[in-house]
């Protein structure tokens, strides 16, 4: 990884925070974010309702971009509605459904609608979704998108070089999966993402804490951790079936047998509570890993459990993140 000639780094960024989330990260708070699958409703109130349980519980809410290749309310629109409701939003941008023109237009449009945090990713394959016959685009990859977003913000230019009238201001994030092969390359890929422009990372779901520990140690060896905030992904399973689903149906997630056995060995009525216990143990473990700046909580139809995990982990009350008023 090469240093930028301007010597810029994420942590020593300009003193004016780009977003509420950025302000907390700069202050060194242990941040909590959560994932919100946007709704299938044209009713604007549906988004606020879906996020209601997360208000005051997490610092920012990720609006997913057609997660698992199923269409839902556009993340840009959902983010705007969350901001209106006073909830800090993180807008996801996947490369599956838009080419470089569409992505740049939406980055700019999202910024105009008040979005101050973005996360760039490749996106699941269309085969995982309900439109497997669709044409996936993948015109550019996540690393290209990160650099394009960074260039739009810092240099005020499109990829073509054409000048923007007013550049967007947002904190730029990426994802990484420390748990999938090629394991030895993953820290280098993190380095590439930082070089391309990422300032924070949300990891894939962590059940195997040892792998995350090794990944972070390697990232530290490569000198990457001064340039990026890493949020560890933690899943709150609702039942043993939830753990099976992740192990068997979601590619790239390492669910150790011990986790599945533990939930399998719990009576069905007690599985939800056991899932919360499991998540709490992982939160406790990842907090002790040097360089982990926060957690990113995920669940499937079990949003109430997120509040419970945050509370019992002793992470409440959350510091106020003032969502940005829409210009």
């Amino acid at each position, binding site marked *: *990884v*090469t*240093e*930028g*000639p301007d010597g*810029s*780094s994420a942590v020593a960024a300009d003193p004016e925070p780009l977003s509420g989330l950025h302000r907390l990260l700069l202050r060194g708070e242990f941040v909590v974010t959560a994932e919100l699958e946007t709704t299938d409703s044209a009713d604007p109130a549906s988004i606020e309702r879906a996020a209601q349980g997360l208000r005051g519980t997490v610092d920012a809410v990720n609006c997913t971009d057609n997660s698992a290749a199923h269409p839902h309310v556009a993340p840009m629109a959902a983010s705007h509605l969350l901001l209106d409701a006073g909830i800090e939003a993180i807008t996801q941008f996947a*490369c*599956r459904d838009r080419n*470089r023109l569409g992505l740049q237009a939406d980055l700019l449009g999202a910024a105009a609608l008040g979005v101050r945090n973005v996360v760039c*990713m*490749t*996106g*699941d*394959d269309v*085969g*995982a979704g309900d439109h497997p016959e669709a044409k*996936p685009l*993948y*015109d*550019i*990859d*996540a*690393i*290209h998108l990160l*650099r*394009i977003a*960074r*260039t739009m913000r*810092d*240099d005020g*230019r*499109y*990829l*073509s*070089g*054409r000048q923007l009238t007013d550049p967007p201001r947002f904190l730029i994030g990426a*994802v*990484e*999966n420390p748990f*999938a*092969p*090629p394991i*030895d*390359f993953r820290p*280098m*890929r993190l*380095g*590439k993402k*930082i*070089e*391309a*422009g*990422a300032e924070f990372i949300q990891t*894939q779901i962590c059940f195997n804490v040892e792998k995350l520990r090794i990944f972070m140690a390697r990232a530290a060896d490569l000198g990457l951790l001064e*340039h*990026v905030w890493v949020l560890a992904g933690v899943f709150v399973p609702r039942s043993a079936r939830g753990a099976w689903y992740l192990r068997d149906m979601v*590619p*790239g997630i*390492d669910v150790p047998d011990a986790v599945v056995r533990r939930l399998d060995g719990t009576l069905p009525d007690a599985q939800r509570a056991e899932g919360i216990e499991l998540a709490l143990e992982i939160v406790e473990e990842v907090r002790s890993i040097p360089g982990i700046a926060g957690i990113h909580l995920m669940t499937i139809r079990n949003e109430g459990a997120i509040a419970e995990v945050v509370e019992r982990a002793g992470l409440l009350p959350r510091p106020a993140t003032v969502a940005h008023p829409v210009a």
Partner: protein
Amino acid sequence: MARTLDRRPPPTSPSPKGFRKALLLVERQTKEAVYDCRMCGQCILHSTGMSCPMRCPKNLRNGPCGGTFQDGSCEVVPSMKCVWVQAWEGSRKLPLWRDHMEHVERPVDWRLQETSSWENLVTRRDRYVPDGWDERGHG
């Protein structure tokens, strides 16, 4: 940055004939047979452990997605080994260019599809970079 915007396509002549056509045929025959090449016309095989990144169903040029199965197979085509697992292993065996796995590769120029990367290398047509692509990087 005071560079003016160059709207011209990269220099080339249309449909290859004669020697250029022969070159295209030879490149296609050999690279398709050996590397399952997809003729993107901007070859980076040596930077990716001799594993063609265009075989990746997501056309990723900068490394694997997050969906690789624990056994190293591709999430989209599970019968296939992840192109980037192969690239990583292949790059470790190369005497040169190992560090290229850490380089940020530029976006694909889709106009070069089905053209000869050998010709594009000589004519430098494969060096085309959009004006707003920042090669120096951040962080």
